[in-house]
């Protein structure tokens, strides 16, 4: 037998049943009853008051990405809910499990253009895995159970629960049962042994195979299974931005990053390999460039849990539909133990070329202004290559994913698919809350930080230890780079006149320092990392730095710009 309680209390109890201990949110009229209940449950659930609802969703994303749990955000109706749209869309395209609870006007007013009413389910349906409006208190436990099941199973994603004020206050007979089954939703496909056999045969016959690893491995918690597969198969492995850190950077078969600003080796070899094995990745256009010239010579094996991704962008010779946690061990059993020393040495040769032409000058310049790569590399080394990298979006992001190094999984938090400027600062807050034992380093541009800079207030209020590094070039750098390359150096609206970020940080009681000389950077990094709390470093970097290598958008992956050779 259950007991009669309010909908809002049922919501909080349901969240506790789902193991939720942290909520990022912002109160307002239509969600006030729920916030009143949170007040009673302070001991069990920590609520972090952000400074803007977009920050709540990005923080929940950062939390989900480092902890592996579902991120939860609470916001009010109307503007509160619409402010979460960017974060929800970001979570959708990057497969991040979120449950976003939005308050809604009382059900009798629905559809009447009531104060702070917005059609939240209608707005968010195309950018959520599931969006549902709860109008009766008694529906709350079931809806919450479904929300967590849907958000976290299969290919994860965001769920919106829009709860009317009367449902929050109504009474129900409370009884909670986790959802493990929805008849119209089969998130865990059975492993098809025929598919495994076909794929194993292709791998066993391969001469120059290349594996492309995506976030699916991390989401499926299949890092060990991945290591077993690649070490037995001997296959060189390249990573999408979101797949980074699923294998340590220094693993001998880790040949680097794919994509527009990826390493030369994996991009060139994509069009030379005879078998391309995609594991939990979706052939995003930033990875493939022009599909008509992409890996045409190769047999493609596609491992994915989402059937709609198979054959969406690249036709698969063989598909392996399922959870990589199950399919990787199944295929590892059937493949021969192999080594590809010559093939791997070709990747090393590519890396040496890239090192000499691009990397050396980016990481170890002898004159001129500080460079982004240089600062990132120093901080990575100073944290023993074991910190969590959080980035915003732009040049510093690509430099970050290129030059930061990893030893553990879940070490990269970045907006890959949506490319959301303003993601970095709130996501770093969530990342730290989700992985309190780890050092969290945020790299952010002078443009991006100003999109969500108010979240410094959240850092101050909750004493969240995030190392904030502004790579400040006084430009919207990535747009400026494209203007230089493709728009005749017409720098339309990319010059930034910036505030004094050190003073801003100080106003939030966050220690800060500005660095513009090479001789000061090491000491500043040491000071930042040794400081027990959050710290902001505003680093003046080369104004017109470029991210190379670069495959221009929509061109062949072998069309790689390297800058001045």
């Amino acid at each position, binding site marked *: 037998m259950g007991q009669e309680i309010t909908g809002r209390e049922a919501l909080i109890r349901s969240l506790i049943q789902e193991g939720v201990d942290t909520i990022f949110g912002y109160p307002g009229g239509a969600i006030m009853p729920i916030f009143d209940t949170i007040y009673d449950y302070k001991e069990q659930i920590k609520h972090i008051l952000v400074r803007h609802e977009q920050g709540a969703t990005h923080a929940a994303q950062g939390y989900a990405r480092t902890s592996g749990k579902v991120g939860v955000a609470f916001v009010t109706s109307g503007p509160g809910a619409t402010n979460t749209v960017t974060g929800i869309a970001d979570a959708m395209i990057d497969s991040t499990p979120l449950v976003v609870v939005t308050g809604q006007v009382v059900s009798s007013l629905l559809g009447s253009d009531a104060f702070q009413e917005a059609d939240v389910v209608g707005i968010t*349906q195309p950018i959520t895995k599931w969006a549902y409006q709860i109008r009766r208190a008694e529906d709350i436990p079931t809806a919450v159970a479904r929300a967590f099941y849907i958000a976290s199973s299969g290919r994860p994603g965001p769920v919106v629960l829009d709860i009317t004020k009367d449902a929050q206050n109504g009474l129900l007979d409370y009884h909670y049962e986790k959802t493990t089954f929805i008849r119209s939703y089969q998130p865990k496909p059975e492993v098809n042994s025929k598919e495994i056999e076909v794929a194993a045969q292709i791998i066993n016959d391969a001469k120059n195979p290349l594996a492309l690893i995506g976030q699916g491995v991390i989401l499926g918690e299949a890092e060990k299974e991945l290591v077993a597969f690649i070490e037995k198969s001997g296959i060189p492995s390249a990573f999408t931005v979101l797949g980074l850190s699923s294998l340590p950077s220094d693993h001998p078969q880790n040949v680097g990053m794919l994509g527009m600003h990826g390493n030369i080796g994996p991009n060139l070899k994509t069009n030379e390999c005879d078998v391309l094995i995609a594991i939990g990745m979706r052939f995003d256009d930033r990875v493939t460039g022009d599909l008509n010239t992409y890996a045409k010579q190769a047999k493609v094996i596609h491992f994915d849990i989402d059937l709609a991704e198979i054959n969406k962008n690249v036709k698969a010779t063989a598909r392996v539909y399922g959870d990589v946690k199950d399919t990787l061990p199944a295929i590892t059993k059937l493949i021969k133990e192999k080594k590809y020393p010559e093939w791997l040495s070709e990747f090393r040769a590519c890396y040496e070329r890239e090192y000499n032409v691009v990397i050396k000058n980016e990481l170890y310049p002898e004159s001129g202004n500080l460079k982004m790569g240089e600062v990132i590399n120093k901080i990575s080394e100073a944290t023993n290559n074991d910190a969590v990298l959080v980035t915003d979006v732009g040049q510093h992001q690509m430099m970050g994913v290129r030059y930061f190094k990893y030893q553990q999984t879940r070490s990269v938090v970045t907006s890959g698919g949506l490319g959301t400027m303003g993601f970095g600062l709130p996501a770093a807050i969530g990342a730290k809350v989700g992985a309190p034992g780890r050092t969290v380093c945020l790299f952010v541009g002078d443009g991006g930080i100003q999109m969500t800079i108010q979240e410094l207030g959240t850092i101050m209020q909750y004493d969240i230890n995030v190392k904030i590094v502004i790579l400040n070039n006084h430009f919207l750098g990535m747009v400026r780079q494209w203007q230089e390359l493709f728009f005749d150096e017409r720098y339309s609206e990319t010059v930034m006149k910036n505030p004094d970020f050190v003073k801003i940080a100080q106003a939030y009681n966050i220690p800060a320092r500005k660095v513009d000389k090479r001789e000061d950077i090491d000491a500043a990094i040491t000071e930042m990392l040794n400081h027990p709390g959050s710290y902001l470093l505003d680093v003046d970097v080369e104004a017109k730095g470029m991210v190379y290598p670069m495959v221009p958008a929509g061109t062949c992956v072998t069309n790689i710009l390297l800058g001045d050779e």
Partner: protein
Amino acid sequence: MEEKTLYTVTIFSENTVGLLGQVTSVFTRRQLNIETLSVSPSALPGIHKFTITIFTDRDMIEKVVKQIDKRIDVLKAYFNTDEELIHQEIALYKLSTPDFLKMGTVEQLIRKYNAKILEINENCVVLHKTGHHAETQALFDELSKTIGVLQFIRSGRIAITKSKIERLSDMLKDIERKQNRLNE
């Protein structure tokens, strides 16, 4: 470019609010126009059936149907070409009674098109015809040329597959059987 054909997409879903929007947004994102649409309760309680026709190529229809199929409340989505289906549309034609009586070829017309007269009053006659799009169109064209059509309405396509495919009820039983096995 692959050749475009008319595909019939069949979707079985839970009867949830807003599902039509979810389905149509998949087409909208791909800039596909829905030619016809028909939604009704299926033979199974609580399950709705959508029949949608779309002009596109095979590669595209495969992709969009998979994207529809993965929506949480969709039980099953699949597509067929005309050859694989028995399909039907209904058309109603409103004509002026005086003009209709003056035609003098009513019997011929009704026989030729296998049409029915649903209503005759002093103002108007309502004809009814079922058939493929081309057939209902042919009657419309003939009436337009002769006496003119006051109003014309055609339903969306309804369709049934010819092949022996898995029935939805069997699929549901199978899903529940697998689930029970997992729970054991």
